[in-house]
């Protein structure tokens, strides 16, 4: 039996909000950053406190009329005037603000994605109590001094590997008296890559045969074997500085040797049948390999990452895991 005797209004309300969202999107169109918040895209409505404030004003007006109390009128009018002024100041607080960028660094599934909205206050006055929302997730509240840039961070929990797509972010402020809420909707397609959550109980990484013994010609870092062109991601340790001084071109030293193994992390070797579980295991192997300083490559049924090492390479591998099987992104906001 339902706990409430009344039919729930929630579906109705949700439908209404969807309709409003569609209308706003149609009205505003898609946004390209950076943009300046103009009055056309600012909306303002009373908060629950503001609604109560309005009712109190009305009650006080009735009371003052009934008792014909002059100072009661003065108090009522002062309240009304304060409310009207608050409305203007609330609107002005957002109008003219510049939204520079929205970004979100990749996270592991289950962690909170951090959407950072970068705003610049080009005006000569501080902007106060700016915050944002994605769906039900509220952001940090910040003050931005005149001429400064700051970030509003909105944390959105992630559940599944893949991507978290945000189609709509609202930016709002209740300053000055929390009587009114002024907000804008940003329609910026922002995605946060969600890597598979590394398996805590992953089996030991199988050591591929190619790592054994170190065949001739296999690259290592023991014995110098020549120079090659510099590639992005090469460690500064490898750059041939003397060569640079002579020829003005960047080159990396190449070594051969056995102590660095090249590993292939292969989807097929991951245990289990559940692809998500396998990806989790792969993720933990990638992290382990990077931590061990190995060179490693990744083989998935639909993609391959050539062996390399470094944080950028690790991220590339994890990104590939996140994209595996082209999962539908989760939506927030």
């Amino acid at each position, binding site marked *: 039996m339902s706990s409430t005797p009344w039919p729930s209004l929630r579906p109705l309300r949700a439908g209404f909000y969807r309709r409003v969202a569609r209308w706003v999107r149609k009205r505003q169109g898609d946004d390209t950053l950076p943009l300046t918040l103009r009055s056309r895209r600012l909306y303002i409505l009373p908060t629950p406190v503001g609604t109560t404030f309005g009712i109190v004003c009305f009650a*006080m007006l009735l009371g003052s009329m009934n008792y*014909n*109390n*002059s100072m009661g*009128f003065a108090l009522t009018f002062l309240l009304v005037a*304060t409310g009207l002024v608050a409305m203007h*100041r609330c609107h002005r607080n957002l109008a003219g603000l510049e939204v520079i960028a929205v970004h979100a660094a990749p996270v592991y599934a289950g962690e909170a994605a951090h959407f950072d909205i970068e705003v610049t206050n080009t005006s*000569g*006055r501080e902007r106060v109590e700016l915050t944002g929302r994605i769906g039900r997730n509220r952001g940090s509240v910040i003050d931005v001094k*005149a001429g400064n840039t700051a970030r509003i961070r909105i944390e959105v929990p992630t559940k599944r590997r893949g991507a978290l797509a945000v189609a709509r972010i609202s930016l709002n402020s209740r300053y000055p008296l929390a009587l009114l809420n002024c907000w804008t909707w940003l329609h910026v397609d922002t995605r946060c890559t969600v890597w598979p959550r590394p398996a805590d109980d992953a089996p030991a990484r199988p050591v591929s045969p190619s790592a054994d013994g170190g065949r001739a010609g296999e690259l290592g870092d023991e014995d110098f074997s020549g120079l090659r062109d510099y590639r992005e991601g090469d460690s500064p340790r490898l750059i041939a500085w003397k060569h640079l001084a002579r020829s003005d071109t960047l080159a990396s030293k190449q070594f051969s040797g056995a102590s660095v193994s090249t590993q292939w992390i292969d989807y097929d070797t991951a245990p289990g049948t559940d692809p998500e579980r396998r990806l989790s295991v792969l993720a933990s192997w990638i992290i382990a390999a990077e931590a061990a300083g190995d060179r490693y490559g990744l083989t998935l049924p639909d993609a391959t990452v050539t062996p390399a090492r470094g944080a950028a390479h690790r991220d590339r591998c994890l990104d590939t895991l996140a994209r595996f099987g082209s999962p539908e992104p989760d939506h927030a906001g």
Partner: protein
Amino acid sequence: MRADGRLAHSLPFIVAALLAAFLPQIASKPPWITLFLVTCAGYRLLAERRRLRLTPAWIRTVLGLGSFIAVLQVYGGINGVAPGSALLAVMAALKLLETNSQRDQFVLLFICLFMILASFLQGQHIWSVVYLFGAFGVTLAAWSAAARDGAPRSGRWYVREAGVAMSLALPLLLALWVLFPRVPGPFWAIPTESGGANTGLSSTMSPGDISKLSKSNALSFRASFEGPTPEPSQRYWRAIVMDRFDGRSWSANENWAMNEPNAIVPNGSEVRYTVRMEPTDQRWMYALDMPVSRGGREMLMTRFQTLESRKPINERKEYTVVSVLDYTTNTRMQRERFNYNTFLPDGVNPRAREFATQLRDDSGSVEDFANRVLTHFRTEPFYYTLSPPPLGRNSVDEFVFGTRRGFCEHYASAFAFMMRAAGVPARIVAGYQGGEINPLGGFLTVRQSDAHAWTEIWISNRGWVRVDPTAAVAPQRIEQNLDSALRESGERVPGAFDLPIMERLQVAWDLVNARWDEWVLGFGPETQRNFFEWLGIENPDWRDYIVLLTASLISIMAVITVLLWWQQRPPTRDAASRAYRALQRRAGTRTMRGEAPLTWARRAGAARPTQAEHIDAAVRLYLSARYGDEQDAVPRLRRAIRALPSQRAEA
């Protein structure tokens, strides 16, 4: 539940706001309420600072029930402004104990607003303006602190926020005050307990009643005359006529059946004046002896030639009346009225009755007889005093032949009694006598201490004639005021000043109060109408009000918008930046977003190879003006810009 320090920045402001709102009520409320509020506030503040446990729910319930019962005990109910505001203060204290969220704080702030309103319902002194802005200002600062969403800011920031909000709200307040349509109330019955309702005249008079009043310096009414203000001896303000005597006290007769046609024959010119009276919760009004026209439809002229309101006067009232100071009333009287006006209960005051009959037999006319009685008062050792000895059952006998110390009601009562004893119709008139002219404002201020009682006797060919027996004993009372009359017996009216400087201050203060009453407290439908007519709008209806109000609100808001926009404009550039922009214009190449000066110089130089060196030198001057400490870099940069030929001139 423990306090966690989240509210540490806002709670002190909220407590300050509550105390400020409660301030004017401290004197009129039982001390335990103030103590309770302060204790709860103190504990709650300490709890926030020391992270103490908040008061458990059962203690709050017990305290709540206890204080509710205590309020019931003190006031005997919860209806009315006084018990209501006491409950509000108690509620605020209890709410403070459980406050632990932003929502709770807003509830407290709303209570705070209602406490301010409750203070006004209990009195609107001139200090109310200071109180309104003070208490509301603190409340706004507390509101800013409570509404603060981000990291807490300094206390000064919240105070400044309140200041900004109030200064922007002020013009809107004035527009709403003047233009918001004032509808005459009330809509529902209000408990009759306006301030000072119990000090004032009453419709019965026993010995000692008026002398009690005379100890009050409270304002009764003010009057402004259109012509010259009448002499003090002519300032008899009649309010109530009492013609029923039960042997001890006089009272007003409510019996309307015995009617008496009114006819006032003026023997002099008319006096026109406006009275602004304080609320009395009674129906009578004040008019100079004798009023000939009533002020408006809401007033009646009684058969006693007094003014009466159709409704009890429970708010300040303003009306204009015409009186004649020299008059003759109806010279005919019906038999039953004559009997009524000479009626005395049997057996009381036998000596006075005897004395009066004796005197009447010795005198030729009624006038002669009245004069003999007055002479008796004057020549025998009668004293005029505020503290007469108590009188027993035969009050007139005891007064005339025993104590001989009395106030106006003793003399009036004794005189009227002796007149009736000798068969002359007589009655008592209660009202005020005199008043003080404010030399700055030109109006007359009449206080409770000017309360007076006198008599009227009926003489067959003259009608009702005013006789004031007090004048025989203490002529100064009539010619000057109560204070000078009392000086003979070494008494003083409380609050009367001696020093001229104090007197002058008092006069000025009285003027300020009069203007306050007139322009602030008395501002209502009438004043508003006059204002519109002054603007040139005859017979304004509600549409005019709405149009004018909306128009002025919109224009004020527009000004506020422009003001806010002006405050937000980007900061003006400094000299170096201005020069750099000038250089860009001159060179014909603008910087791109995020482009560094030297990069720009290379690009600009490439666009105008002939001037590349010049541009490079100028940019280096800009950099040293911007980042270096050379004093003359800016002027040198300006010279360099002037030396650079503009692109158009070159082409």
